[in-house]
């Protein structure tokens, strides 16, 4: 039995991983002690300490009457995928122009091998991804990277908006450093503070710390540093790699107006990435004084093509072609940037467009209950066939349910094999066993599969259905199942964000029209 316990621990580190992100632990508990005596670790259960109490993925699998677990597995998979999607989609004011200092722990604690291959290598790899993702999401923002190494703060890259510079710096400076010594939060924070000191007031000032150590060896009182961070209105987020540390929590709470959601301790590699990438989304602007909105002067340079190479004024590299600053006609090779000779911010209009999806997030889609599932047989956009309702072909429940807002399970009477009733009585509200695997947009009522749902919300930021159907068609479908007001966005009348939303929407419409003007100088219709 001791052997089997050993096995559980070893294998669960691998098997349990996707699960860890999965359903909430609360929902798992009841099922654990339910029907599967063979799965329960009977002998050791009584004297187990809490940390030994491993959540086993196979325990929440409820077998169907026919012995198949396919339904549960699909349901769990989709719940995992969908979990991160369900965020608030009310348009909120966000700090679009960001200044962030990424502080990486390069102390000896990073040599631990609890993350594969080591904490250090994984962190650097994620840091590279982070840089790319950060600039994809925030094209007009700036980043700087600092390392905590041997009790000192090591500057890896300066505040700048060019992802290539940061990636090169990571490659050249961070990868060559051997993790060593203690980490000093205070030194790193002070350096981050110094870097953020001169940043303009309209942007956000943020620090993201990847903290592998459990202690910080500081030359002074870190509380003074925390207070000065608060004074400088710098927001700090921390990703802990080992365990929660009290001072980190205090640091995050004080710099975020008492909100400690910015402090997370990782569970595994996937969760680590999730926590880190969460910082690429622009933060919500909460307090008025956090950032002072202002009007920025920006240049929209035109691109030129040269026959012969010439030096760019930013890197002094020989390049063919580049962008000409409209104010001082200096040539820069990369946008967005600040003109090295006259200091004008140079961007492309596409950079602005890239940030709009933060201002107008795509609404969450709703899961389709079986009573409405008959409307579609395949995913609208990727043509994947949906599962049909095998066990519930009884005609009574196909149409008569117009609006099951609470996702009530279909009546279980008259089903032949009894799979569904068993499931529904156990899980109560939840859709029993087999999910419909359909997700509907509340605006155009089109049904999509889970992968398209995630793709549309995370990468595309469009609803393919709304974009593909003409307005008359969408109007004609307005009475179909998912009612329009399901989502928070439309019901949020009256609060300031909604008025902002309408105004921004109007202006965007103007922009849309005017965007045409440069190229074709017509089509500014209506």
């Amino acid at each position: 039995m001791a052997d089997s316990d050993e096995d559980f621990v070893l294998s669960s580190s691998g098997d349990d991983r996707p699960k860890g992100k999965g359903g909430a632990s609360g929902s798992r508990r009841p099922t654990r002690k339910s029907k599967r005596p063979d799965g329960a670790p009977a002998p050791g259960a009584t004297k187990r300490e809490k940390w030994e109490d491993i959540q086993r993925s196979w325990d929440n699998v409820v077998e169907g009457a026919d012995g198949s677990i396919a339904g549960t597995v699909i349901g769990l998979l989709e719940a995992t995928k969908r979990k991160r999607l369900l965020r608030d989609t009310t348009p909120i004011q966000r700090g679009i122009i960001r200044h962030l200092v990424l502080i990486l722990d390069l102390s000896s604690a990073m040599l631990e091998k609890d993350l594969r291959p080591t904490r250090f290598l994984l962190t650097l790899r994620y840091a590279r991804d982070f840089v790319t993702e950060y600039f994809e999401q925030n094209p007009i923002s700036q980043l700087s990277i600092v390392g905590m190494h041997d009790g000192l703060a090591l500057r890896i890259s300066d505040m700048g908006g060019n992802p290539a510079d940061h990636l090169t710096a990571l490659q050249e400076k961070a990868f060559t450093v051997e993790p060593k010594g203690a980490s000093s939060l205070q030194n790193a924070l002070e350096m981050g503070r110094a870097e953020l000191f001169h940043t303009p007031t309209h942007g956000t000032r943020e620090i993201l710390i990847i903290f592998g150590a459990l202690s910080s060896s500081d030359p002074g009182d870190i509380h003074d540093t925390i207070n000065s961070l608060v004074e400088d209105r710098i927001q700090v987020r921390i990703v802990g790699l080992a365990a929660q540390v009290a001072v980190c929590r205090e640091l995050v709470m004080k710099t975020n107006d008492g909100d400690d959601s910015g402090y997370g301790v990782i569970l595994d590699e996937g969760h680590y990435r999730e926590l880190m990438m969460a910082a690429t989304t622009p933060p919500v602007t909460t307090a008025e004084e956090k950032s002072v909105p202002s009007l920025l002067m920006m240049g929209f340079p035109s691109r030129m093509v040269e026959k012969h190479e010439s030096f760019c004024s930013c890197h002094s590299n020989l390049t063919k072609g580049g962008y000409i600053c409209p104010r001082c006609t200096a040539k820069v090779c990369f946008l967005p940037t600040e003109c090295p000779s006259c200091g004008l911010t140079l961007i492309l209009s596409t950079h602005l467009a890239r940030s709009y999806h933060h201002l107008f997030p795509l609404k969450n889609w709703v899961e389709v209950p079986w009573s409405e599932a008959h409307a579609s047989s395949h995913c609208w956009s990727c043509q994947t066939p949906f599962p049909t309702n095998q066990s519930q072909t009884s005609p009574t429940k196909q149409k008569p349910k117009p609006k099951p807002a609470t996702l009530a399970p279909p009546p279980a009477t008259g089903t032949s094999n009894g799979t569904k009733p068993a499931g529904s009585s156990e899980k109560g509200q939840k859709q029993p066993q087999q999910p419909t695997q359909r997700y509907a947009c509340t605006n155009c009522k089109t049904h999509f599969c889970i992968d398209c749902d995630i793709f549309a919300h995370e990468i595309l930021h469009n609803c393919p259905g709304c974009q593909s159907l003409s307005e008359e068609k969408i109007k004609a479908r307005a009475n179909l199942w998912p009612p329009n007001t399901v989502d928070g966005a439309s019901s949020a009348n009256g609060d300031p964000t909604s008025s902002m939303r309408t105004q921004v929407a109007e202006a965007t419409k103007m922009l849309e029209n005017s965007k045409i003007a440069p190229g074709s100088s017509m089509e500014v219709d209506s």
Partner: protein
Amino acid sequence: MDKVDGTEHYNFKAPADLATLQIIILDTNPLAWATFEKSSSLSFPSALSQLLIFANAHLAFSQSNRCAVIANHIDGVHFLSPADPDTDHRDPGEVDLTPEDLKEIAQQNASKYRVFRLLEDEVRASYRRLIANTDPEAVMTSPNASCLAGALSAALTYINRICFGGTGGRSSGVPGDEKSKVNSAGGKVDETGRTMHAKILVVSVTPDPANQYIPVMNSIFAAQRLKIPIDVCKLRDSTVFLQQAADATGGVYMEPEHPQGLLQYLMVGFLPDHLARQSLILPTKVDVDFRAACFCHKKVLDVGFVCSVCLSIFCEPPEGAICSTCQVKLDATPLENLNKPVVLPPKKKKKKKAIDSLPESGVASAADSPAPAE
């Protein structure tokens, strides 16, 4: 373009042996085609058959190559191939035919490569069905209707399904994931988790859909992220959206001078796959217009003012320093210096400092990290 927009890290380093999915987005607005035919003598049927030859050429390259055709119609987006599994698969043009006629047709096509025939039949049948279901009055009222954003979105979601197995290229994240990817896909996968390459060809005769700026841009950015080139064959009215799409994703942009020879343009310009493109100099448009137009007077700007909250563009500071879009009171202090000449001294100082600090290495400067308050 530049690094943030992804052009620079647009590289074709992936292994050579992955197949390619070609998506063709075809404008099927009848009125736009009729107008175009008058000026160019290229009719839609002839364009369609030339496109199908192009698609067949693509399929002929490799057995595992695939092709999908999406119609950008006046009332929305329709998959021509693969056809919508719900609908009646019969070709409306063949309904009246007797079995003998059908047999004759089948015999005529007997020597054709099956993959070609399947694609051609499917596209033609779906197109006939599409036209049969189109209201003639709606055609007359919408000469420029186009759902470019929807067509691009549908193409991208379809690519996401076929080429990435629905993961959206996100598998590179967790180390353990890659192995499972290979297993689940059962085939070859490159480092981003894609099982096939993809490219999109947009054949367009309609002008830019002005009201779809943001969705189109979103689609372009998504394509850029998945490293999918959007090729554009613009037969009529050059458009800014599609120019930017081709430019941002590293695709080919062409406006054929002699549309009758469409096939040749397609074969020479758009057929090469990602690997061949590395060694070819492709026809692309270099002077893409990226300038912005202001919200207040719709002037095209070189230098403008941008609200830091909602990113609205103005040609001059708005009255009372209040953003007309989001009604936020803007900080006016930076604007006071507007009319003064740009001051140079700070820059000089910076240069000097840079020269001074040259000998220092990165590690040395770390020692100078700001001393904490004692």
